[in-house]
């Protein structure tokens, strides 16, 4: 431009450069448009400024804290200031424009802070995003710009439609605002508030049930306090009821609608229900009264009423009768057990009793005493309702009409059996003892075999007592016998039926109750054995034949007149043939001695009685025998050659000493005795069968016991003996000059004191019986 040269020139230049100018001026126009747009935008988006009064400003940050509606930010705190009276905080909120219609006097604001409690974590989102102000819009009210925030989130009930009820409780216990309301442990609502009732007599708890659960509450619904831990019952039946950990701490209310009652209409808004203290109280059942004698101690805790082990009710409380003649127990029976409360039902107390005879009612030691009840099918069918019963202190006998087999058992003593003791068959309970009574000759025990098992009893059945533990025997093998743990503790009776085909028994048939299974099964022949002394004898001592047990002693007694011991012995089933004329019995006991050690096994197994049955088949039966205290000397040995030696002295010969032939034992000394007249001694020996041919009439026997020491001037000392054993224990040797005819059994030889020297040189070639040699 040429402004500096002359005045008119700018006009010229301007006209010339018009196009340029207009382009440049576009810039401010664009800028203006931008500014105008920004201004319009900021104005249009500017929020509505409102004031909300909070009790305190904790957790609210200017410029940061958001106002949220369903999690979406709809506003922001733009300012915080103390109120004029310094009692509250005025928070200025800039709300989204769209909220303009929702800001009415019914709208509510409250601060949401994270809350961590046992009941759960709420406002968890605030941990990340910070506290926020919850906004609950309501466009039905009058528009306003000033609000007062709620001190805490509004209770559930006021947020939604639902069922609000009043529960009337005697005490609040652990219920708080917000405590859950459970239905089958599902939370269906919560406690919205509580207050004393108008007359100050109750606590009215307002609960809110969510709309979708409202139909669960009917007019007969029962509510009970589910807070805390509820312990009921005693040790074995300990019930710990708690709805959830939440209710443990926060308290809670549970509800249920009894399904046995007919359908009731649904509850109305604001209905009042009683709030029971606990589940049991809520379970209002059928009230019955049971009169017990004074000595029945029911205890303080709730006593259960069991029907065949099933809980059918509870004793709520007990009270003395007006005339102090007894106790009246107020029981509540489960509604589903109403059919059992009929005429004929019996109640009795089951309590632990520990005696020397055993323990009965053991389960009550752990589970607490309980009331047992029983009612027969007949009575149930008759269905005569009754609400007041007489209780018994102990179990009554089953009524004769009760199904099953009623039997009588006669026993010498009760021995641990008591009411309710089990009756076992193959250790399985098939019945129980109903009663017992004293009779002139013992005890009469009545038992009832369950109907399902009554076919197991017939005339061949045998009953025995299995109470407690029985120890049998000593060193010779002892056995511990016990029925079942229950029968061990509570007593019991076992039975078996050997012959299933035997005739059936009727109700009331009597049986003998044996003391033990052994006694019950003593079917063999009884014999009496007479002993000089009972030393080493005991009941159970066995009678053996060739090592096989054929019987045992069942009783030992002293015959005062004769001065000896009489033992009853029972021979096994198939051992009756022993009880005949000619059978011989003797004691086998351990023998320890320098010369003779025998029957060492009896040290461990115990002494026994050996029997040698008489050989004659046609012998007469005999049931009384004398028992020799040692093996008989003249015991016939079935096997081998039996000989007699005649000696002036017995010397060191003992029973069992070996008989040597060329220093080899070929037989034994079986016994000895003084001859009659007593001028000499008879020694019985037995030569083994295979060596029978070694003995001929020319054989010479001598005493081989001791040491034969010979001295010679040149030969020195010569010691010879048949064997070291013979040296110690003694023995008899023999020699035979030449083969010859074997002698018959019972042949008698004279025994020399010592051998002649030529006897020792005899060496006949006698062949030994081949079939026996191997």
């Amino acid at each position, binding site marked *: *431009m040429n*402004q*500096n040269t002359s005045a008119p020139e700018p006009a010229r230049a301007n006209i010339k450069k018009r196009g340029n100018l207009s382009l440049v001026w576009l*810039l401010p126009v664009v*800028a203006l448009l931008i*500014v105008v747009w920004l201004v319009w935008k*900021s104005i249009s988006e500017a929020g509505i400024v409102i004031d909300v009064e909070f009790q305190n400003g904790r957790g609210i940050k200017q410029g940061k804290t958001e106002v949220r509606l369903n999690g979406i930010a709809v506003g922001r705190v733009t300012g915080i200031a103390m109120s004029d009276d310094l009692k509250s905080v005025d928070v200025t909120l800039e709300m989204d424009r769209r909220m303009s219609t929702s800001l009415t006097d019914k709208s509510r604001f409250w601060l949401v802070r994270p809350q961590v409690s046992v009941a759960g974590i709420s406002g968890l989102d605030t941990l990340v995003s910070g506290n926020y102000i919850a906004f609950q819009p309501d466009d039905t009210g009058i528009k306003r710009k000033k609000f007062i925030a709620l001190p805490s989130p509004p209770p559930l009930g006021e947020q939604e439609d639902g069922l609000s009820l009043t529960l009337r409780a005697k005490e609040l216990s652990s219920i708080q605002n917000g405590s859950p309301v459970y239905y089958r442990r599902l939370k269906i609502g919560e406690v919205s508030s509580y207050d004393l009732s108008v007359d100050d007599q109750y606590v009215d708890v307002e609960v809110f049930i969510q709309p979708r659960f409202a139909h669960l509450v009917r007019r007969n619904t029962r509510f009970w306090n589910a807070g805390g831990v509820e312990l009921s019952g005693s040790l074995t039946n300990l019930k710990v009821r708690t709805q959830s950990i939440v209710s443990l701490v926060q308290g809670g209310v549970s509800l249920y609608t009894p399904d046995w009652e007919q359908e009731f209409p649904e509850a109305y808004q604001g209905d009042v229900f009683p709030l029971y203290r606990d589940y049991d109280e809520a379970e209002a059942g059928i009230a019955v009264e049971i009169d017990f004698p004074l000595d029945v101690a029911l205890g303080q805790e709730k006593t259960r009423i069991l029907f065949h082990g099933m809980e059918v009710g509870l004793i709520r409380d007990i009270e003395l009768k007006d005339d102090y003649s007894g106790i009246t127990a107020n029981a509540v029976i489960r509604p589903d057990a109403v059919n059992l409360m009929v005429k004929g039902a019996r109640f009795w107390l089951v309590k632990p009793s520990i005696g020397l005879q055993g323990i009965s009612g053991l389960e009550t030691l752990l589970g607490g005493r309980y009331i047992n009840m029983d009612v027969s099918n007949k009575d149930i069918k008759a269905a005569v309702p009754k609400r007041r019963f007489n209780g018994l202190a102990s179990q009554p006998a089953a009524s004769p009409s009760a199904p099953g087999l009623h039997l009588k058992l006669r026993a010498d003593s009760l021995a641990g059996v008591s009411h309710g003791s089990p009756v076992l068959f193959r250790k399985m309970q098939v019945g129980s003892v109903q009663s017992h009574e004293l009779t002139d000759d013992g005890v009469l025990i009545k038992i009832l075999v369950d109907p399902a098992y009554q076919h197991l009893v017939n005339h061949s059945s045998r009953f025995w007592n299995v109470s407690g533990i029985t120890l049998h025997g000593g060193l010779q093998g002892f056995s511990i016998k016990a029925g079942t743990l229950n029968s061990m503790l509570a007593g019991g009776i076992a039975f078996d039926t050997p012959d299933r085909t035997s005739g059936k028994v009727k109700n009331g048939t009597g049986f003998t109750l044996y003391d033990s299974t052994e006694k019950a099964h003593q079917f063999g022949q009884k014999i009496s054995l007479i002993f000089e002394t009972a030393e080493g004898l005991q009941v159970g001592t066995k009678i053996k034949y060739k090592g096989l047990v054929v019987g045992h002693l069942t009783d030992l007694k002293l015959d005062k007149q004769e001065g000896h011991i009489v033992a009853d012995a029972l021979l096994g089933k198939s051992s009756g043939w022993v009880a005949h004329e000619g059978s011989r019995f003797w004691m086998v006991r351990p023998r320890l001695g320098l010369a003779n050690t025998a029957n060492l096994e009896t040290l461990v197994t115990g002494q026994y009685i050996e029997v040698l049955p008489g050989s004659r088949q046609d012998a007469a039966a005999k049931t009384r025998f004398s028992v020799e205290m040692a093996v008989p000397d003249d015991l016939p040995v079935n096997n081998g050659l039996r000989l007699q030696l005649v000696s002036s002295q017995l010397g060191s010969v003992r029973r069992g000493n070996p008989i040597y032939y060329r220093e080899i034992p070929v037989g034994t000394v079986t016994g000895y005795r003084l001859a009659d007249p007593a001028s000499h001694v008879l020694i019985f020996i037995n030569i083994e069968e295979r060596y029978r041919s070694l003995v001929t009439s020319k054989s010479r026997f001598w005493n081989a016991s001791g040491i034969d020491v010979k001295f010679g001037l040149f030969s020195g000392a010569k010691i010879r003996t048949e064997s070291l054993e013979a040296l110690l224990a003694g023995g008899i040797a023999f020699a035979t000059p030449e083969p010859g005819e074997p002698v018959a059994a019972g042949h008698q030889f004279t025994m020399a004191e010592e051998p002649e020297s030529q006897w020792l040189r005899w060496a006949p070639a006698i062949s030994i019986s081949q079939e026996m040699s191997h």
Partner: protein
Amino acid sequence: MKTYPADAQHWINGSDAGLKLCLDCHKVCAEQTERCPRCGARVHQRRQNSIARSWALTLTAALLYIPANLLPMMTVSKFEEGQPQTIFSGVIELVNHGMVPIALLVFTASVVVPLLKLLGMVWLLICVRFPGAAMHRQQTLYRVIVWIGRWSMLDIFIISLLVGLVQFGQLGTVTAGIGAYAFASVVVTTMLAAMQFDPRLLWDAAEVKKL
């Protein structure tokens, strides 16, 4: 040729001498020269449309100055928490944190200087339109405006640096706000306005006044 009053100080300017100055390489050219023989730039006796362009750019800058100050310059987020900040709120925050000197610096550089630049430009343009003011001060003012111009990019430079450097995801990020664009535009337009302004017009105006 013009004649000047005797009492007035007498200048001989380029046009009087039939000379033009290349504004790019400062070569003195003959009056009829279209392009600078040395650097090839277009050579004018006076910059064409200088006043109008300056006005337009100054006006643009003045308009943009409004959003530059009202709109958030940048958002510094820590743990996804962040509040967009305008220049002014940033300054207040600095003051709240006790960093008054820095706050003053920022305030000066970001608010006062641009404003003064704008006002200075307007003043210069008015002076050219209505000759009469003291030429010395105007020239000084012009120099100051040009000198300051290069420093007014500092804010933008820092913001772009931060935006580039501080990107730690959820831990912390810096994002430029729309105000930064407005601010950058203000800086650029004021610089352009100052550049478009031909200082020789001031002298011409001074001479007119003297006449």
